[in-house]
């Protein structure tokens, strides 16, 4: 039986930096620099909150980590993979190593929760028997076994986000990027999602939480990296939201 656990990978690599950004800079059109000389070291299995105001460059950083954007200068290394100049062909393989969730859940409305999760495996060519095992496992993990046949509009925002988390876990990612995952949720649902992320982190998955929710960050008491105008302005262990 399949049991979600990327710990084997964590144990093998725990001595090396899981994510390493060296002097990373990125600018968009008209030469506006969105990231300036970013240096970050995130170890395997860490739970890191990335905080900053809108337009500070947090989302650009997420896009760089999932290979959607390329850096202008510097290097980006994930595990032992230098993705600085990752080719289009390699991007899908990177994304199977990194789970991503967003504020708007990105679920398909005409598919049930189960089908939404299974879709991620279907499009990667997994056989039905394997899909059945993996989807059962992750749905159990996020506590949605009994609602698997419902459609997204039939469940709460928190349950939709949990479905998105389940989908992000089907490839047993080493990293989970959560870009404002509680932005559309009330405080009860938001806390449930954060608890789930903490639980996933305990399995050994590195979790990067991008947020500007002060309460959540303060409650977590984990490492906080603050970004302002494209630069890292603070990086503290077990810190609080301090922008």
């Amino acid at each position: 039986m399949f049991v979600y656990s990327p710990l084997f990978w964590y144990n093998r690599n725990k001595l090396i930096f899981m994510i390493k950004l060296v002097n990373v800079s990125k600018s968009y059109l008209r030469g506006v620099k969105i990231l300036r000389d970013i240096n970050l070291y995130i170890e395997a299995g860490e739970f890191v909150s990335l905080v900053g105001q809108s337009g500070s460059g947090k989302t650009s950083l997420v896009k760089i980590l999932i290979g959607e954007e390329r850096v202008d200068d510097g290097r980006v290394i994930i595990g032992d993979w230098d993705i600085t100049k990752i080719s289009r062909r390699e991007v899908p393989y990177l994304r199977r190593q990194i789970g991503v969730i967003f504020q708007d859940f990105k679920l398909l409305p005409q598919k049930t929760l189960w089908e939404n999760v299974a879709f991620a495996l279907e499009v990667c060519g997994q056989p039905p028997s394997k899909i059945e095992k993996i989807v059962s496992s992750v749905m159990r993990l996020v506590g949605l076994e009994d609602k698997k046949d419902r459609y997204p509009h039939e469940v709460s925002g928190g349950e939709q986000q949990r479905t998105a988390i389940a989908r992000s876990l089907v490839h047993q990612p080493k990293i989970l990027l959560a870009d404002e995952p509680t932005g559309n949720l009330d405080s009860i649902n938001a806390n449930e999602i954060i608890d789930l992320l903490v639980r996933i982190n305990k399995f050994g998955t590195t979790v990067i939480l991008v947020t500007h929710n002060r309460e959540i960050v303060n409650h977590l008491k984990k490492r906080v990296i603050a970004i302002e105008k494209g630069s890292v302005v603070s990086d503290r262990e077990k810190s609080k939201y301090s922008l």
Partner: protein
Amino acid sequence: MFLSTIRIIKFSLQDISRNVWLTIATITILVLALLSVNTLVTVEVLSRHAIDAVKEKVDISLYLKADASDEQVASLKTQISQMAKVKQVLYTSKADALRYFREKNKDNPEVLTALRELGRNPLSPSLIITPNNVEEAPQLINEIKQIKSEVIESRDFADNALILEKINDITKKISEVGLIIISIFIFTSMLVAYNSIKVAIYTHRREIEIMRLVGASNNFIYLPFVLSAIIYAFLGVLIIIILFYPFLGILQPYLEVFFMDYNINIIEYFVNNFWLIFGLQFVAVSLISILSSWLAIRRYAKV
């Protein structure tokens, strides 16, 4: 691999069924484009037949005196046969000429009555000279003009080559106009296919976004749209086959009347060249559609 292929087909069929009206519009434009192409193929075949028929008629008649001896005729025939530009020389005697004349005018009683009233055979024996190459007919006529023989009564150099030149000219113009029409239709088809795939991508934008997020390979995202394009092409060609054969069936009796004596069968031509005509069209339309989808995907799906 097998599973992925099945899923690519599934996604492609989903794309077609979810955008039924778009599919119908795309296929209609493709059918119109193919209709113009096949009409031009028909015109091309008919004009080729017409030219061949006229080519067969391009001959030079040399009328001989009625009292020419067999030796004189044989000598002249040999002399002409030995000319480089001559394919064959046929001798038609006075009696043969009369027989051919009667046969040709069997439905014209006035001519036959006039002939009977004349009481004698007014026709001359002749040599019918067929050139090796129709294009060389004018030079051959010049050479024949140089022949000095007492038995030659008159020389009929009715210029069939001129008629041929005119037909060639008309065919060339039809081909040129046809090429412009085909180009316009190909361009329109490309735009329509491009637009259809663009709309299909827009309809599937969320799925595409999620596929990219969860690590679906680029081919997996790209191929359903390419397959849809091939299915559009296949359906377009299938519909044109279904529409065009009855059209040819309606056309055929008119052609038989128009090209009487020339044995033109346009249906037979399309049946004998089925794979060449429609296979080629399928490949061409598929390539156009694939190119359009590739451009649309690169532009809108960011695969």
